[in-house]
């Protein structure tokens, strides 16, 4: 059994690097994803993940760093999503959707100008987990430190805004700058993770483990811990699936993360049905005032 589950990571250095990178991605995504799920920003996160494509394409075209291009593109998307979610008279999902496809269209137009893009864009969309180098790990660790610091420092306004922006405002925290900071945190996560799991799949790591945590946890801190655990397990199990069955590594990891969510959702529904016919218990308490 050990040969099946552990030996590949012991024997193959590239697989060890891939595991280290994907665990770092998992923990980064767990921290940012907790607030994405609690604040209902999954679609905005999806738009940002896809919106980095034009920047990466331009960077490749100019021979510049794709990470720099992704960061610039993410900044444009953050500004757009920030303005839309706060000021649009349309539903924010409609406006974000239009911004998302607009940015994607720009990316496709740029890439369609050159056939040499095909390989590069495939790596951008689906990642290059098995080609991770030491320097990628260092970037990912730096992103984890940045995201962790932002989440810790701004945990109170982030939590208040997840409940209600009005509560944040009446608690002395202006929502606009903290909303921008939360989007910046998501942007850093996406830009740092696209080399490993790709822009198409990073949303899976951002949302699925955190959604699993939100389903089973009673506290916000526990949501993050469950998300990190699920993400790390998905990294290990996904890489094993990829190794033994010759599947795409990033996609295998995301699939395991989504399967864990489905399992948690099914078990949670079953527990509620067995408990009291679908209704959660309401403890009876006498009212009193002192």
């Amino acid at each position: 059994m050990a040969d099946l589950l552990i030996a590949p990571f012991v024997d193959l250095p590239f697989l060890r690097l891939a595991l280290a990178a994907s665990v770092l991605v998992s923990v980064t995504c767990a921290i940012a994803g907790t607030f994405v799920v609690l604040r209902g920003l999954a679609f905005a996160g999806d738009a940002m993940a896809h919106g980095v494509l034009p920047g990466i394409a331009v960077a490749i075209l100019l021979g510049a760093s794709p990470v720099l291009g992704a960061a610039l593109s993410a900044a444009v998307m953050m500004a757009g999503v920030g303005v839309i979610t706060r000021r649009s008279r349309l539903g924010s999902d409609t406006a974000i959707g239009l911004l998302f496809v607009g940015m994607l269209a720009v990316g496709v137009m740029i890439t369609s100008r050159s056939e040499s893009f095909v390989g590069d864009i495939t790596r951008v969309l689906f990642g290059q987990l098995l080609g991770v180098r030491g320097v990628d790990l260092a970037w990912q660790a730096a992103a984890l430190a940045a995201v962790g610091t932002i989440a810790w420092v701004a945990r109170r306004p982030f939590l208040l805004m997840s409940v209600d922006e009005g509560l944040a405002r009446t608690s002395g925290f202006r929502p606009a700058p903290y909303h921008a900071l939360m989007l910046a945190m998501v942007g850093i996560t996406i830009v740092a993770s696209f080399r490993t799991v790709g822009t198409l799949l990073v949303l899976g790591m951002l949302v699925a483990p955190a959604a699993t945590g939100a389903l089973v946890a009673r506290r916000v801190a526990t949501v993050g811990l469950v998300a990190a655990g699920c993400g790390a397990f998905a990294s290990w199990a996904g890489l094993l699936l990829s190794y033994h069955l010759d599947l795409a590594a990033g996609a295998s990891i995301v699939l395991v993360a989504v399967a864990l969510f489905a399992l948690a959702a099914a078990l949670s529904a079953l527990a509620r049905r067995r408990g009291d016919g679908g209704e959660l218990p309401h403890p009876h308490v006498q009212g009193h005032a002192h």
Partner: protein
Amino acid sequence: MRTDAAAPSVEARGLDVGYGRHAVVRGVALAARPGALVALIGTNGSGKSTLLKTLAGMIPALGGDVHVLGGAPGASARRVAYLPQHPASSHTLPLRARDVVAMGRYAHLGLLRRSRAADRGACEAALARTGADAYAALPLRELSGGQQQRVHLAQVLAREAEVLLLDEPTAGLDPAGRAAVLGIVEAERARGATVVMSTHDLGDAERASHVLLLAQRVVAAGGPHEVLTDAHLRECFGFTQLH
């Protein structure tokens, strides 16, 4: 707690409140000193919640003067607590009742200060006063509507504020729950807090030191006996009190 016995905690002159450019109520005049209870009464859409949101600093005043604890609304988050009419989406979040109440201290804690014994004590006292201590460890999403309402009131009390802005705190409560909330309001007044409270219940309004009767304008303002007259009530609601 009392800042200056002579100075009103909440003061408005010619205050216009509303959304965007649309005024919901014009010309509100108010001077509430420490220990006062101001009752806002009126029909749905009469401007009660809009006025409370303006006093809380959630929406800007459209005209006139308004001061809360001597400054602009929203400038003294630690000293003012606001209970919205429909405390929002925390019902779907993984938060225990105790965590929701602890959020009431965030205005004091700011970004980085660690919670101290005094903060935890304020939360425990607020839970006990509202009776929510019995289910403090349960997730909010597993509590009934009335229990959630008590938890949100406990969050407001945990701030230990000098001004309490309460938007229909007794709505939907059974008689025991309503009596408990009104008892808490009286206790807050006794310690010197100023309470501005909207209500649909004329009985609640009769306890107030000052009543504003609203119908997208100020129909009447003053003591309960001056304001809650048959003529004013007929003008506002189209009916009079049952005697």
